[in-house]
């Protein structure tokens, strides 16, 4: 987690997202190194899953293709290990709980830590199930930051509870809905973020539907990290690594 905590001392960070194994494992490595070289600050590596309920069509399709390519959880660990030696920026795993549950929760945390992973974003592992799963316990044991997700509809008493489990930063979903579709940042966005800040005294990331420079700038007025996902997959499909490099440079400028 140290690499991540150190990074979080900087301002105006850009976090990007890739699906491991899309369009292939070798391309994933190139995409991640390109992102790192182009100035991205943090990358979440999504472990492909058959039923990614929080994801929209673009990321869903990428998951499907990655699985068709035969991508396994072991592949995910290996890519994490190889890349965390190559790139300097912190890398996180993103995924669905069943992937971890199947691998064995403690074993997963241990292997992820050994592979250099800094934290885990698992949107369908709520704190209410901790008694059963001991997921947050193992994150702590193996020095991984559990990145909690917060929504505009999260009430204050839940924010208070979530604050006890959150480490490093929290991921604020910009709006209702799944990943992909462009977010129209409204006035209540500021109210939402300010309210979250009352309860969570750690850096905030904002993601879902951030596609362009103007949105990144807007997010950075309110939160330390802007998260960009689906649009990079689309850009890759059109213009490959060059497209990713150019888009990131534009977003970071």
């Amino acid at each position, binding site marked *: 987690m140290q690499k991540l905590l150190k990074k979080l001392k900087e301002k105006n960070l850009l976090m990007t997202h890739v699906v491991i194994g899309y369009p292939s494992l070798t391309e994933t490595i190139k995409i991640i190194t390109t992102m790192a070289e182009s100035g991205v600050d943090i990358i979440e590596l999504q472990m492909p899953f058959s*039923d990614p*309920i929080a994801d929209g069509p673009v990321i869903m399709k990428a998951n499907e293709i990655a699985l068709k390519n035969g991508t*396994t959880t072991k592949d995910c660990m290996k890519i994490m290990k190889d890349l965390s030696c190559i790139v300097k920026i912190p890398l996180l795993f993103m995924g669905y709980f069943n992937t971890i*549950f199947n*691998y064995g929760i403690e074993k997963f945390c241990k292997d992820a830590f050994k592979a250099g992973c800094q934290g885990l974003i698992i949107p*369908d592992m709520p704190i209410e199930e901790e008694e059963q799963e001991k997921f947050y316990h193992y994150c702590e044991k193996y020095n991984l930051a559990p990145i909690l997700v917060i929504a505009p509809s999260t009430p204050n008493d839940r924010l208070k509870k979530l604050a006890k489990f959150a480490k490093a930063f929290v991921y604020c979903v910009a709006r*209702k809905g*799944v990943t992909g579709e462009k977010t129209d940042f409204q006035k209540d966005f500021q109210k939402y973020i300010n309210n979250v800040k009352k309860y969570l005294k750690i850096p905030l990331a904002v993601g879902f539907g951030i596609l362009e420079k103007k949105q990144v700038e807007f997010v950075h007025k309110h939160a330390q990290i802007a998260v960009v996902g689906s649009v990079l997959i689309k850009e890759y499909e059109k213009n490959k690594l060059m497209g990713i490099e150019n888009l990131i440079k534009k977003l970071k400028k």
Partner: protein
Amino acid sequence: MYSLPYKNGHYGQFGGRYVPEILMPSLIELEKAFNKYKKDKKFLKDLDDLYKNYSGRPTPLYFCENLTKKLGGAKIFIKNEGLNHTGAHKINHCLGQILLAKRMGKKRVIAETGAGQHGVATASVAAKFGLKCTIYMGARDVARQRPNVFWMEQVGATVVPVYDGNQTLKDAVNSAMRDYIADPESHFLLGSALGPVPYPEMNTFFQAIIGREVKKQCREIYNIHPDYLVACVGGGSNAIGLFYEFLDDKSVNLIGVEAGGAGKRNAIRFKGGKYGVIEGYKSYFLQDENGNTLPTHSISAGLDYPGIGPGHAYLKETGRVKYVSATDKEVLKAFQLLAKNEGIISALESAHAVAYAIKLAPKLAKNKNIIVNLSGRGDKDLFIITEALGDKKFYEFLKSKV
């Protein structure tokens, strides 16, 4: 309930609410509303009235005299849920949930469907109560259960075919959940005893009317002891509905029948499945070594699903319910046997339960009684059955119509 303890949203280690944060507030609100109204006299009276006057309950418990004679063993009775309005037991939880949604001030319902029975029931109650309705259905199921798509549209629902994954029930559930994530002010009218808390418990509560009626009918009409209760298990709603009232009475044997499909292609969660957390709940799932769901197969769209309700996972492990399976072939045979001997056209899902009863009856003494849940009637399966039986005249008829 001693045999099915429910604590903090779990049946033993199964169940739970593994959902993205965006859905948490809505599901907690739903759980609170359910806990309030399940004890509300007026609510229960309204529900009872709908059961009676909208759906036509109580459904008959019918003695299959001819079939019993033919098989020469235990007496076979059929709990005919197919005589419900809209043709299956699905209306039981739909009426309960729509009343709840109405009390909560909801304006729109979202649902998934496999065979289309839950979709038709949802669309119908939405029409009755004036709520907007969107139904997600796997594209393969749309193709094989076309009549139900038409009926859903006739009662005013929007039916959205889902082209992801295996294009069946599981993919429809995913799409319905994504819609719910985009519009958490809607009510997600989930159609079986599965999904995140409070769905398994709520669904069980609304379906338990089946077993309550059976108990009364056994006593008052036939004066018999129900020795065996048999039901098919997709997600598990009709089975738990029949079993619930009898769980603590060990003199009643409970049998759930899964879809045996054709050879390796099946949906037997309790054979090929292992623990998993998918679509918001922990249970048994058919999945590969990385935890990704596997494609399933059944002749019946309603049983063609890789997961199973968490209550059933618990009952499987304690051994209170015995789970078996019936193959597509056995199901077609059972369908025909029931039709020819009793003049009852069964849904293919329900014919799984019939198939097992047919195997079981000759092995039992004549003074034993088997109650089979006929969860639905077979009208919707017209196209599948005519094709499976290779009915040339029907094929000619279809050709003449286009």
